[in-house]
């Protein structure tokens, strides 16, 4: 009995929740840093959604966000949307960063709760969600060459699945 309790205590830290491929993502709501409008992942059900975790101190994010902005413009808004979550401690850092890059998609500043729920394994990390609301893939880190594979993945998801 005592041994079981000890084993359970040992396992608890490893049982942290995370957004895993094939599962329903954790709830994601917030306010767009740029427009002030409400953002809700559930409201985008039926679209392919890319959820990207980024920070102003993350060097690859300087490259990924402008490329994501271009990718978003390649598809109809009814089919594809991007939500970017800034994990900066200070929202002002994220806003200063956004003055340097032209990004029109919703940016939500995180107080740590969203990152804890989604558990992005690196910075940046992105999660691609299909029309049915399931996480189809997870991308860790970013190189400019990655955008082509991501574009193909988004196109495949848009064409393969339709809103129920």
């Amino acid at each position, binding site marked *: 009995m005592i041994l079981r309790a000890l084993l359970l205590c040992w396992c608890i830290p490893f049982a942290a929740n995370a957004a895993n491929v094939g599962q329903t993502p954790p709830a994601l709501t917030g306010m767009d840093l740029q427009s002030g409008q409400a953002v809700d992942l559930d409201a985008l059900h039926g679209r392919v959604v890319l959820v990207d975790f980024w920070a102003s*101190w993350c060097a690859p994010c300087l490259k990924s966000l402008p490329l994501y902005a271009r990718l978003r413009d390649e598809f109809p808004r009814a089919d594809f949307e991007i939500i970017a979550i800034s994990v900066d401690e200070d929202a002002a850092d994220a806003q200063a960063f956004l003055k340097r890059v032209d990004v029109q998609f919703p940016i939500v500043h995180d107080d740590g709760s969203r*990152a804890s729920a989604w558990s992005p394994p690196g910075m940046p990390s992105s999660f691609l969600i299909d029309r049915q609301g399931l996480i189809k893939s997870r991308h860790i880190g970013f190189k400019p060459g990655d955008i082509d594979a991501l574009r193909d993945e988004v196109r495949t998801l848009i064409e393969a699945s339709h809103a129920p």
Partner: protein
Amino acid sequence: MRRDRVALLLLLAFLLGACATTPVQPWERGRLARWDMRFDPDPLKSALKEHTRFSKEGSSGRAGAAGGGCGCN
């Protein structure tokens, strides 16, 4: 006997707990990513200082033996 076993298990649990760490998560590395947290926050300044020291104090062999400390290399 039973009490000894419980004490041993508690001791083991305590030792196991002592090994526990709270790793810094990827989204918590903002402070660690600051330039002034780097081991060498200003590589250019360090290179200039190192070159001066290398030229002036080469004879002492500080950064490898080179020159005689005349400041001319």
